[in-house]
């Protein structure tokens, strides 16, 4: 009698575990994006580069890229990040040309492609400024899961925005993130990893 109840208990426990495992598998299969969670960041966009040319995600295929969202009337995080990017490019040397660096404005109302060109040229001319209409900007912001919001001030406005830089691999998938204030050595190591990976894949 005792043995039977133990057996029954074990059987029920087994069934419960199997059900949980099956459920998890089902949920994972259903909701897990193809290519894993890394594919949640990034995706199709069409923007205007600071030289006036249209630039899409397809133009970026084959090379890793680092992408940052900001605006030129940002007093601290944006110029600091761009200065850090310029310093990293210098340290990467020839490897810097094995990837691209993009700055997307989240202030298309005040920033223009010309303004972006002038602004970015004081850091490194190879940093590409991306400008879009309100709709185009919304699309790329959503694709990269970036947060931004306008904050009114007495006479104009400023913008709160994601300060993290995304490093995408040569297939356009999220490879690394660079946090604001992250140590340069750590940031450089991440970029070198992504460059090495794309090299191995013949990128």
């Amino acid at each position: 009698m005792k043995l039977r109840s133990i057996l029954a208990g074990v059987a029920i426990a087994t069934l419960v575990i199997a059900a949980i495992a099956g459920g998890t598998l089902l949920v994972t299969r259903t909701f897990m994006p193809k290519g894993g969670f890394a594919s949640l960041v990034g995706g199709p966009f069409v923007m205007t580069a600071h030289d006036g040319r249209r630039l899409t995600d397809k133009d970026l295929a084959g090379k890793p890229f680092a992408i940052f969202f900001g605006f030129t009337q940002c007093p601290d995080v944006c110029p600091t990040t761009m200065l850090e990017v310029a310093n990293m490019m210098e340290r990467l040397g020839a490897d810097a040309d094995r990837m691209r660096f993009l700055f997307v404005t989240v202030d298309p109302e005040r920033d223009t492609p010309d303004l972006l060109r002038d602004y970015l040229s004081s850091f490194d001319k190879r940093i590409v400024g991306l400008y879009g209409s309100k709709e185009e900007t919304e699309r790329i912001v959503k694709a990269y899961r970036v947060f931004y919001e306008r904050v009114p001030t007495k006479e104009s406005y400023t913008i709160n925005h994601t300060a993290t830089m995304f490093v995408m691999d040569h297939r356009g998938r999220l490879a690394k993130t660079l946090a604001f204030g992250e140590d340069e050595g750590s940031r450089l190591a991440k970029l070198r990893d992504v460059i090495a990976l794309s090299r191995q894949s013949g990128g």
Partner: protein
Amino acid sequence: MKRFISNLTAAALICLVATAVEAADYTLGTLKISTPWSRATPAAAKVAGGFMVIENTGNESDFLIGGSLVRSGRVEIHEMAVVNDIMKMRELPEGLEIKPGATITLKPGGYHVMFMELKEPLAEGDKVEGTLIFKKAGTVKVSYEVRSRGAKGGGHGGHGGKH
């Protein structure tokens, strides 16, 4: 040798005096303001931050409510912070409170005077005149020293460059 030592002493004295002068800076009533500085701006930039240390030696709070800079159209008092990877900036509508006995440091990544509508860029080494306006103490003229673009602040002498 004696002359060498006296020269050395003189040099040390000059250094001490220089430091003391730099630390004194501006006094307005019970407020002491030291080393106002800013950062060199990128081309086409329309904004810059103003930084300094303000000490309130008095018995009541005062508020930094505004100011001016000769090269800027207007000035706002802001607070900035990076919270959960998001850069958040807001204007302080009542100004920045400096409580009695408190010393507040305006620096990159925190409180700053925001120069808006810059008419000319700020270049490293420039000295730019401006004012600060306090709710109770009134207005004081200050001169901002423009440091490098990556300057982080802290200490005297203005060599806060990154590397």
